[in-house]
């Protein structure tokens, strides 16, 4: 993470604090042990910025992951939050159980393309179907970084490994699949574009249900060479942002006016807004079929369309569908959980 060089100020600047009175420092984690330049570290940095700026309570957040370089990253942000680095491809089930147990929690899940689209595809799809309330981030680099660069299921057909070996199979597009499965918040971004990624993460945190962020996050060590469609150069060359994204938190009065002709304003369930300013094409992220069509067409041209691909607010999330009590299950006392002796006697009576 390179910071722009600045001349040191004469008096030390008080660190900026957010709505909880916390500094950005309160949102950092252990130092990263990933390869310098790994896309995943930039994603981590955007998560820190987003969570700090909107003022996520670290003590209320859980960070869930599977196995992979990407899945290690929860250690690198928000050390005051609980984290669970589970097993390869199975983070969705663990997150589902945790969120059922305590509906007061907020959840960010971090996974890799191997973790999600290869070994974990089944669990991922079922998580989407259930609409588990969480932000699900895929650090997508087209390879298995941690096991040294084999193809994953998101690798493009024809993309080459360092050895020259080409991939013969079509990629799984996690965004298209999520839209197909009625996921109600689907975005794609690029680890190198924090201007786009930070507001997307903020909006995802305000969404009700599963918010999917597929972030192209190059593996500098195993998939950054000529012939790879997921190298930094290739992604930069083919990244086509759909819109400029702005996020207006619920607490701020909406000052900035916008031109409805060029900007789409979408209100999120917590009262915040996401604003999408048109760049050069008209794109309606509330049109499911249109979104699928656009993704399909641009992928066949080798483009990476980035931005908010699909959104639909008002869908019931998993907690609602499960009719869960307002009291989190994990907080219930014995009195609330164990029926009385009379109940047992009645049940026994019916069996006599």
């Amino acid at each position: 993470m390179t910071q722009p060089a600045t001349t040191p100020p004469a008096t030390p600047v008080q660190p900026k604090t957010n709505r909880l009175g916390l500094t950005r420092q309160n949102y950092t984690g252990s130092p990263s042990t990933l390869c310098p330049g790994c896309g995943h570290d930039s994603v981590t940095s955007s998560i820190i910025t987003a969570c700090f700026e909107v003022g996520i309570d670290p003590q209320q957040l859980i960070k869930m992951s599977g196995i992979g370089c990407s899945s290690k990253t929860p250690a690198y942000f928000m050390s005051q939050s609980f984290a669970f680095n589970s097993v390869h491809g199975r983070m969705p089930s663990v997150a589902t159980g945790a969120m059922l147990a305590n509906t007061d929690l907020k959840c960010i899940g971090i996974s890799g393309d191997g973790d999600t689209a290869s070994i974990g595809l089944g669990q991922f799809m079922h998580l989407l179907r259930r609409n588990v309330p969480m932000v699900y981030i895929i650090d997508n680099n087209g390879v298995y970084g941690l096991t040294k660069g084999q193809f994953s299921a998101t690798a493009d057909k024809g993309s080459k490994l360092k050895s020259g070996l080409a991939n013969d199979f079509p990629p799984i597009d996690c965004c298209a699949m999520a839209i197909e499965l009625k996921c109600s918040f689907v975005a794609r971004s690029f680890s190198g574009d924090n201007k786009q990624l930070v507001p997307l993460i903020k909006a995802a945190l305000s969404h009700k249900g599963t918010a999917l962020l597929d972030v192209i996050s190059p593996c500098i060590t195993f998939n950054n060479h000529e012939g790879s469609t997921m190298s930094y150069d290739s992604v930069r060359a083919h990244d086509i942002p759909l819109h400029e994204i702005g996020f207006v938190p619920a607490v701020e009065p909406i000052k900035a006016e916008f031109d409805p002709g060029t900007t789409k304003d979408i209100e999120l369930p917590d009262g915040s807004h996401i604003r999408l300013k048109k760049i050069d094409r008209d794109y309606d992220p509330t049109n499911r079929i249109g979104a699928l069509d656009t993704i399909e067409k641009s992928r066949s041209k080798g483009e990476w369309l980035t931005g908010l691909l699909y959104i639909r607010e008002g869908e019931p999330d998993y907690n609602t569908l499960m009719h869960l009590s307002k009291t989190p299950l994990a907080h219930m006392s014995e009195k609330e959980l164990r029926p009385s002796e009379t109940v047992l006697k009645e049940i026994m009576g019916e069996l006599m």
Partner: protein
Amino acid sequence: MSTQNTNKINDFTIRVATVNGSGSQSANSVLIKSIFYMGIPVAGKNIFPSNIAGLPTWYNIRVSREGYVGMRRDAEILILMNADTFQEDLAQAKPGTVVVFNDKLPQQNMRPDLVYYPMPFNKLVQECCEVSTLRKLVINMIYVGAVAQLLGIDMDKVRHALERQFHNKPKAVELNWKAALCGFEYAKNNVKKNDPYGVLAMDKTTGKIVITGNESAALGALFGGCTVFAWYPITPASSLGESLIDYLAQHRREAEDHQARFAVVQAEDELAALGMAIGAGWAGARAATSTSGPGISLMAEFAGLAYFTEIPVVIFDVQRLGPSTGLPTRTSQGDILFTQFLSHGDTHHLAVIPATPEECFSLSYEAFNLAEEFQTPVFVMSDLDLGMNNWMSDPFTYPKEPFRRGKVLTAEQLEKLGAAGFERYGDPDGDGIPYRTLPGTKHPKAAYFTRGSGHTARATYSEKPEDWKWVLDRIAKKIETAKERLPQPVIEKTSGAKVGLIAYGSTHFALIEARDQLAAQGIKTHYLRIRGLPLNGAVGKFIEECEYVYVVEQNQQGQMMNLMKMNYPALAGRMRSVLHYDGMPIDASNIAQPILKWEGKNL
């Protein structure tokens, strides 16, 4: 022969052969309940195929004035309704067997040494049921009436059983009652009784309940405070989840808004089911999953994760016959070794082994205490025979002890610990059991990083040899501590006995009977029933006190005996295996016969 032969009163087995899916289940259930309501001990066993409809199925009804409820191979009365198995069922009958059968079945080679009561079921059902589409459903109720007449079962009890069976459907009660009466009348007017079997009212079932092990375990989960239950359907475990859903829906809702104080998830597979339960256990809920063999195989990786990250979770294993798909509708105790060490690396799990419906209830709720107390997976090892069959039982007693939720630190407790905070994987009490915090705890020192990879006592990542060894050894110490707090073996000593019997789970009922049979042959026995794993010292002491022990189990490999040999190598020479593993529930003779042989009593 005369009906006065008191030996044959309240002591015989009825075997009903029908076609799967033909609705015989309710007829058999009414028959059993009628006998039960007469105060006579009775047990039912469903020997069914892995099929929805069309394949043969048998139902055993054992009437036993002595209260023996284990499996019996022999039957004294056959009710044969299935053309496909008719000849085979006859061929296997022992001489003197009473055969009630549908007179439409082709009758070749009818053995002369059986007692036949042919009945025109097809004609009778046309008489007693006007709607032709319903005939298939009530035809079986005709044999209930006929058998009631032949054995002297009180028709008032049959009526009562019908009303309980179809309690919200008066039309169904009347329809079935008409069929039962029809069978009764036919038998009365047309069958000349020529057998000694009959029933006489007793008072041995007063105050008892009839329940399956799976329903009992579901009640254990309800009263044990289980809030998150994730499962994937599989025979013979499904009915556990299904009855839990019913019980939770009735007894675990908020008073005002009826919102749920539970979450039941039908997961996409068993990996996800255990993953969800682990996530919930980590977040502080009492969580469980239920499955059988193939599901247990899928759960291996997650079981190791929960062991090493120290997360409470309860896993119900209703064992069926393996390996592989095996025989899904047949019983076994074949998962003992696999579940003990489930997952790669050095894992060692806690298990409780219920033998009765009452224990399915009490050991299940205890499993939730043990899981939280020791922050580890706890397996509840039931099986198909125990889980799916109906058993007589005393009513369950309400749990006396409050929940034991284990070492969980609150924000206030963390505050008292000051700047140093707590060690998630430490051992401050010297018992191997660490303290944990729950996600959402409002304290800056509450959070920790959970990982299945190497970690230190402070839950930081580590590859250092000494850190790895320390954590793994501390967990082993925790398991050692748990041994004494697991359900202890039940020991029955007999004065003058030299031989010990060791068994566990559903083998218990057959074993009680086998012990009586052995005693009748002059072989006195001690009996130890294992109820918790890993084994603890009490088992070793018992073996030491016996000249030798017979370890009776329903698997091929002598799995429990192998565990015993591992634990008490010096006593290995005293252990003898009695094994039964053909999928049928073990019966007393399966135990008594080999032991008599060992003891030099050839009978």
